[in-house]
């Protein structure tokens, strides 16, 4: 992947493929502690995104803005506005820059996390996507190296973060209605965050810088 708009478009395409592949898994996770639609919601959203990617923009930020508004207007549920905000804030952070750098990627991830928290008011430990995104941002910031290295660190940490939601009792979102019974299941939003970051990291493999 290149670190310009074309590369970002390619990364979004692989993210869409990953969502498609894991749709049933995300539905099943949401069935356990939610309402069984998370995979379907994201699939609907990323399918719409795919149809908008051609000529989505000349800069990474412009592309991510199209992704954001498409997700907001097609995903629905809690995940729609949250992921929409995440991509929107990342886009805003990147501004009009034409090429991603490891630093700008970290800053964009950080902005995404802040957006999700601002919108959803969840804290770490509430068993939400924040529990994947928070360690991901920290790991990305601590990592050194290329965009690919930063994203790999983020994805690894997000994987672990998603895994760590299993024993938690949910305090936000639909899973919170279950109280204690929400423990013992992975949070679907944390899992999808980890999947998206992994897709971006894989797409960035061998990218420069």
């Amino acid at each position, binding site marked *: 992947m290149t670190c310009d708009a074309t590369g970002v478009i390619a990364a979004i395409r692989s993210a869409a493929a990953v969502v498609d592949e894991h749709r049933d898994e995300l539905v099943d996770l949401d069935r356990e502690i939610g309402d069984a639609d998370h995979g379907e919601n994201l699939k609907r959203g990323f399918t719409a995104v795919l149809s908008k990617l051609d000529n989505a923009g000349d800069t990474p930020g412009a592309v991510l803005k199209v992704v954001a508004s498409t997700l907001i207007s097609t*995903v629905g549920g*809690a995940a729609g506005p949250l992921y929409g905000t995440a991509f929107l804030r990342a886009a805003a952070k990147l501004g009009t820059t034409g090429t991603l750098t490891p630093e700008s990627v970290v800053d964009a991830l950080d902005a995404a996390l802040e957006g999700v928290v601002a919108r959803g008011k969840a804290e770490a430990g509430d068993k939400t996507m924040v529990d994947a995104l928070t360690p991901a941002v920290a790991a990305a910031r601590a990592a050194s190296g290329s965009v690919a290295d930063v994203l790999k660190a983020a994805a690894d940490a997000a994987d672990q973060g998603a895994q760590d939601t299993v024993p938690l009792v949910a305090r936000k979102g639909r899973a919170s*209605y279950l109280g204690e019974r929400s423990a013992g299941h992975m949070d679907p939003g944390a899992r999808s965050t980890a999947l998206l970051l992994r897709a971006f990291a894989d797409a960035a493999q061998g990218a420069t810088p």
Partner: protein
Amino acid sequence: MKKIINDPSTVVEESLRGLAAAHGDILKVRTEPAVIYRADAPVTGKVAVISGGGSGHEPLHGGFVGLGMLDAAAPGPVFTSPTPDQVQAAVEHVDGGAGVLLIVKNYTGDVLNFETAAEFASADGVDVRTVVIDDDVAVKDSLYTAGRRGVGGTALLEKIVGGAAEGGYNLDECEALARRVIASVRSMGVALTACTVPHVGEPSFVLEDDEIEIGIGIHGEPGRRRVPHQPADQLVRTLLDPVLEDLPFASGDRVLLFTNSMGGTPLVELYLAHGIAERLLAERGITVERRLVGPYVTSLEMQGMSLTVLKVDDEMLRWWDAPVRTAALRWGA
């Protein structure tokens, strides 16, 4: 999964087509984004009342669009909140210049999507107010949860506020009345069986032959606890006691009692349960002033029921009794 559908991904869209065909005198439907709105919208000078949410709870909300109730409803995919575009389109279709009241059930997704739409509409100069209904006592309300869910009370709220808007209330008055209704209504539900979401194809949870789920939501999400099935007398008490203790309701109170089917429970059982609830309220010295019995806030084909009790006053009764002409509720018009 056996359902009368063609394709899980087009269920809502095809269903809306049938709704429009069935009730052309009452409502219109537009797609992309999907909105159900009053056939005579916008009604100039009237506060527009808009609600919406995931599909699969019919007749909520689309069946409540019409004179004296909702001006528009934004139907999301099955059990998934609608997107901001839908709500924005609803506002555009029905804004009559007197402001818009958004009635939102308290789910993270609904709240966030309506919130976004409200921001856009406000930016366009529309006076938009949002009220969030959270009547389900099965869920703990605290700073550390998503709070109570909006369930059966939503139908009562939409009727009463819709009636007042039709009757000439301004936006402030509509909002104040809505907040009072929300503060006065409590609900609790039970599932005897699960429901199957079309795009999932399997039941959302599994209940054994002798198990029921107390404190069920309306999205096939599991409830608070599983208990053995019980006789109706006891079951109705299991639902009613926490509702009454919550507000609390006390002897001398006047109430509206809403006995709601989750969809698959037949009327013969629902009326039986309603009769028990009436008796229990009478025993407590609570006067039932009005009642609603039927499948109004449902969860697809789920078997089960909910009880909603609203502490009423003369103002609420006046707008409850006011004429309404929708697909699902109709009187005086």
